[in-house]
């Protein structure tokens, strides 16, 4: 009996020892935790790279969608029905086209906010120039992401960080918020120029932060009809040199956004009329497409295949360098400085081989000649924007602000302008956000007569 007790004790002891080894707190080796990322400088720097990656996605989604619902892109033959619907102006609630811009924009915003929080929490671990660069990058890309949202949805949430039920506001509130973010970015780098460490190891190659900030500043000032700021900011964007062209780069195995959507079920290509509607001498199509006489889409649209983005590693410009000139020309026109405006516009028209040494669309057109009137200049600027800023998503806002939304255009008819005012709100937000239910936030009503402008709140 005594023997047995000893053995029982031994068994019990053995059990305890064995079980002592079972630690139930297993760390996830596949993914870092929030804490691991946000509490180390390396983690925060990686967030800055992640932000630029997400920005590339949200910008790509925006430009893709905006090109479809205007007159820029149409679906290729194997594309999903929702894509050929969108090219005809129909975007039902709940489709990827309606959701992707919203979801990816707010992921970019989230990462920008995480990065800003990291720059505060770890302020002492970064030198001043690196910290200002990080913060300016976060402010600028967050601003542009929200700017893309407000060009796609009638109302958007602007305060979303650690908010469980974000509220939606109209453009009158959202646009100033976006502009304030850009001003914050500009203020950061004006106070402390970004460090060399930031410029070489955090900012991805091909990006010029001061130029990006000033271009965005000009873009949204123009949208707010603030000609003075638009002019000042446009003048601050570099005209020549490598810094004048900011690009997102896609070294192998990553693939630029347009190369990713040339084939398969989300395949799109430029409509052939982009090329054929140009003045005969205009060469800008050569930057984008390879001329085709045969390529047709899922519902019969005539297409030209991509030339530039057929190369999956082709860099994607963050903005077309001549956008600054076109904004400047428009501001000058509004300020009635017509001669100066026309000179700026001519510099866009006459940009040709060699030119400013930038890899951008080159019209190679003759100058305008006789002085145009204010309205003629605005019309010409609108036309030049269509050809110069192709594939940037800006076309949609241009057609909207000029009251040129023409409503859905059923194939085989070919649209020549924006086909709808807004996207339906993202069901992904509606499903969980009490401030975004169908009752709290009805989808905007599309106009009943065309051409039309769109209500912004």
């Amino acid at each position, binding site marked *: 009996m005594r023997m047995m007790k000893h053995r029982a004790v031994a*068994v019990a002891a053995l059990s305890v020892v064995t079980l002592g080894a079972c630690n139930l707190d*297993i760390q996830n*080796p596949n993914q870092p935790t929030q804490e691991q990322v946000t509490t180390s400088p390396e983690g925060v720097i990686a*967030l800055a790279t992640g932000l630029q990656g997400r920005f590339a996605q949200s910008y790509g989604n925006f430009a893709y969608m905006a090109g479809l619902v205007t007159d820029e892109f149409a679906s290729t033959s194997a594309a999903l029905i929702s894509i050929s619907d969108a090219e005809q102006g129909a975007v039902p609630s709940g489709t990827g086209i309606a959701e992707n811009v919203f979801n990816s924009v*707010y992921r970019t915003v989230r990462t920008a906010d995480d990065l800003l929080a990291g720059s505060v929490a770890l302020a002492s671990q970064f030198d001043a120039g690196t910290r200002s660069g990080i913060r300016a990058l976060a402010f600028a890309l967050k601003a542009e992401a929200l700017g893309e949202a407000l060009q796609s949805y009638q109302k958007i949430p602007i305060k979303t960080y650690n908010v469980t039920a*974000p509220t939606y506001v109209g453009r009158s509130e959202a646009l100033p918020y976006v502009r304030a973010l850009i001003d914050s970015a500009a203020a950061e780098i004006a106070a402390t120029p970004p460090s060399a460490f930031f410029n070489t190891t955090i900012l991805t190659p091909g990006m010029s932060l001061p130029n990006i900030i000033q271009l965005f500043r000009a873009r949204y000032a123009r949208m707010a009809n603030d000609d003075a700021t638009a002019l000042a900011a446009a003048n601050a964007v570099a005209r020549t040199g490598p810094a004048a062209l900011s690009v997102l780069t896609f070294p192998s195995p990553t693939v630029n956004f347009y190369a990713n959507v040339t084939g398969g079920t989300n395949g799109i290509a430029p409509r052939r009329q982009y090329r054929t509607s140009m003045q005969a001498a205009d060469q800008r199509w050569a930057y984008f497409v390879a001329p085709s006489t045969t390529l047709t889409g899922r519902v019969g649209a005539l297409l030209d295949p991509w030339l530039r983005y057929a190369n999956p590693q082709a860099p994607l410009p963050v903005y077309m360098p001549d956008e600054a000139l076109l904004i400047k020309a428009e501001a000058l026109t509004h300020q009635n400085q017509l001669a100066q405006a026309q000179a700026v516009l001519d510099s866009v028209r006459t940009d040709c081989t060699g030119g400013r040494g930038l890899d951008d669309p080159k019209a190679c057109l003759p100058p305008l000649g006789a002085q145009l009137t204010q309205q003629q200049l605005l019309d010409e600027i609108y036309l030049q924007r269509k050809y110069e800023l192709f594939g940037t998503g800006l076309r949609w806002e241009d057609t909207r602000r000029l009251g040129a939304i023409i409503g859905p255009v059923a194939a085989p008819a070919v649209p020549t302008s924006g086909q709808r005012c807004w996207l339906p709100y993202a069901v992904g*937000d509606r499903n969980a*956000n009490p401030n975004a239910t169908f009752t709290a936030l009805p989808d905007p009503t599309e106009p009943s007569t065309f051409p039309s402008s769109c209500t912004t709140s």
Partner: protein
Amino acid sequence: MSSSLVRRGALLSALALASFIHATSVRAQAATGVVRGHVTEGSGGRGIPEVQVTIAGTRIGAITNANGDFALGAVPTGARTLDARRIGYQPVTRAISVNAGDNDVGSIALNVSAVNLNEVVVTGTGTATEKRAVGTSIATVDSALISRAEAVTVDQAMQGKIPGAQITQNSGSPGGGGISVRLRGTNSFISGSDPLYIVDGVIIDNGSAQLADLGIRSNPQNRLADLNPDDIEHIEVTRGAAAAALYGSRANNGVVQIFTKRGTIGKAHYTASTRFSYSQLREQQPFNFYPFNENGIAVNRYNYQDSIFHRAPANEQNLTVEGGNDQTRYYISGNFADEQGIMRSTSSRRSGARVNLQQQLASKLIGNITANYVTTHNELQAFGEQNDYGIMGSLFFAPTSVNFSPTNGIYPLPPSLGTNPLLAIDKIRNPQQIDRFIGSAKLTWTPLTNVLFDYTLGLDNTGFEQRQFVPRNAVLGTAPLATGRSQSVFQSSRVINQDGVGSYTWNPIGPFDLRTTAGVNYTDQRIRMTSATANGLAPVGDLVSAGSIFAAGQTDVELRTLGFYGQQEAAWKNKLFLTAGVRYDASSTFAPSERWQAFPKFSASYVVVDNKPGALNNLRLRSALGWAGSQPSIVNAYSQFITFTQLPFAGRPGFVNDVTFGNPNLKNERAREWEVGADVGFLEGRVSTEATYYNRLVSDLLFFKPLPTSTGFSRQFAPIGSMSNKGFELLLHTQNLDRQSVSWSSTITYAHNKNLVESLSIQDFQSAGGYPNRIRAGYPAGVFYGSYAARDCVTGALLLDSLGRYRRSNQTVDMGATLAQRHAISNGTCNDSLNAIIGDPNPKWTGSLLNEVTLMRRLRLRMLLDGVFGNQIMNLSTRAQNAGIASNSHSYERELLPYGDPRKLAPGFNARTQGIFQYWIEDGTFVKLRELAASYTIDAAIVRRYFRDGVDLTLSGRNLYVWTDYSGYDPEINLFGTNAGGVGSVQTTAADRGFDFGGYPIPRTWSLSARFTF
């Protein structure tokens, strides 16, 4: 010593687990004898193997060999009581007189019985107990039923034998097809709904994930296929939470315990069996074979089913040797199976060996070792949901007018989707290599006759390599795949299981017997996976190294579970049994604050009539109440952590927040189940029945709760609602005839289950991404939800457009843009909703009928009918055929008929129906002739001279015929069947059922087998 039941239970525990104990107290006595005998089925029937024979009041015991013979050594002389028992038979006790030396007690006859209250079951405590003491219904399937099924895998062999288990073969792929087992309905969305599998006390992995894209959601195989059915001694199935509560946080879906053969005492005893089979497509599908196209121009049509399917041979060889003495017992087996699939270029080959060894280490200590190594090699092809190289998808999506035959060695590709199926068969390769070891070591220590300690260490280690080779220019579609793909994925899966249990039997007062059990269990499961993928393949070479563009990946997932349990059993006069137990469980998956959960259980069993002669022989009433949990499958093992994910950009590493937000309060799903039932035996044991009603409610169901996407997140793994399953199970066994020359018995199973999503705290959702089904409160899980054909609200007639085509409920062109227009078209408000609940994939009831007839004791005939009733299937295969690119369905022929033909359908009729999901709902009711077999024993003297028990010859068939109205290949196949849930698999839920989309048809199989013993 009391002869009370609970004490006998303790003895049986030792026997069931260790089977043979040579007690020192007995050995100490001088005068002993050897007792020999022979156990037969009925008087003068065949010898029965695996019968436990014990001497009452001692721990001397033995198991009969394959011939029914037994020998007990060192039995004290004098008057003794011999006890013989086996699953499925009424036990027998016989008084014997033992003399020194050899004692032959002759034949002992056991009679078949379905109600056997003395059957020993393990019930999830690690200690054995008699069935009469258990308040829940436990189904057992023994080796004879398994081996007679002539099935490729264990789960196939269980089909139609367990009431309340819906065992579905989701594909006809070689090597068993992917099989899913649902015990008492769907009980979880996310944790997988397959039960926990335990082999000889070792929790094993039954994953069905495919490591490469073999067609999204196809179901080629689940890993239970690695077990050799011939090695199995018996299976115990505990269906509900009440029965399985002692498995704690993993028991919600029930538990299947598999016990392998132990070996019998005596000289080495060899058994060889061999089987040759062939399988074939049961029936072809009709396609569009109309010899003209849309423009009335003559075209050639091709039937590629002739080229894709063939008659496929298979063979299986088994050799076992077993034997032993009073110190050592062994069972050694070798197995080889080679099966061609009915789809050309698919096959499965399995070779395995097993050694089960038991050794008396000391007078009170027994060691048991099981070791099973198996290597499986599969050659598979993609099927299921369309991918770019799936054979079934390509068959359904390609026009029948395309000539796929190669010319000049070039295989023409289809016009729009998929690949050339002939090319896939000839050139695309998906080999799998699985090397698996399942082993256990167990120590049983019985320091006193009423104290038992047991420790088991188990290991299930699986190395799984999946390769894929798609040559250049083999598929249409996007650039990377068209440049060829070679992929190699290695997965190592390891489950380590430690189990310790102790029990103490005591008798404090009079008629009460008590047993106290306490135990601990620890499981550590780890899955590591490394993948390498290459595109841009060189013209020659099919390994990853032949590529020019590379990608790689790695994952490492670990899940640990620690549980303590205690149980108190009380018996009163061998009549009333009360049990209370609790398991206290923690899993690493859950948040530390929620981790420890208690799962109690209570059960009662009352034996009203116990083995009485006459009209009513047995009556037992039972009831149980218990709680159990379920954990997320290993793919979601880290859901409690808020994590970041890699987003490299511009060639630099980057992090962004994971859009699935971690849940730092994650806790397990919790099921509460009660059941009540009765076991009754009538008419001298000729009729017996087990009936059970159960009611289960699962709360805190885990699924992805949507988060506002404006926050930058999309979802969080969180409790979203509750779901119930209520049902009734019946097992009825009748001995219709029992004569010397002929005996005939029948077994009927019936199970009815009603599933209901009781509540949802989130919006109702589509559980199968992209598929028209729904989880909605107030409906069964996974109901079909989608577009319907609008009807006139007054007459109920289908609304047609001017060309006679249906009007689709969610199509503006058909129904108008405004509600007012809809009302005008519909004559009322009945078509207001765009989509509706249009069907239910859950069966109303399932049942089976097994008949076994023995003639002249030599010829045995058996027939098993297995059916599923009242479920619906969405036939997406035919839908895919119906329009657009393919237009190859049989009904499309009618669109091609000349105008004026009364059968002519309007142009676009089929394209229109393609958009109406309701149109594709069909009745999925079927009855299958699951098993049909005739066995004959050749036992002529000349044969017996070489083969001791004669030779058994069996001609059998599986899935020979199906009675159904379903129009597709097979009503049993299911796109989402195995609910993979493995690392790297597509997210599906257990509720996603009833979708037929490009499945691998289940073949009809004929086999001829022979079994020799020597």
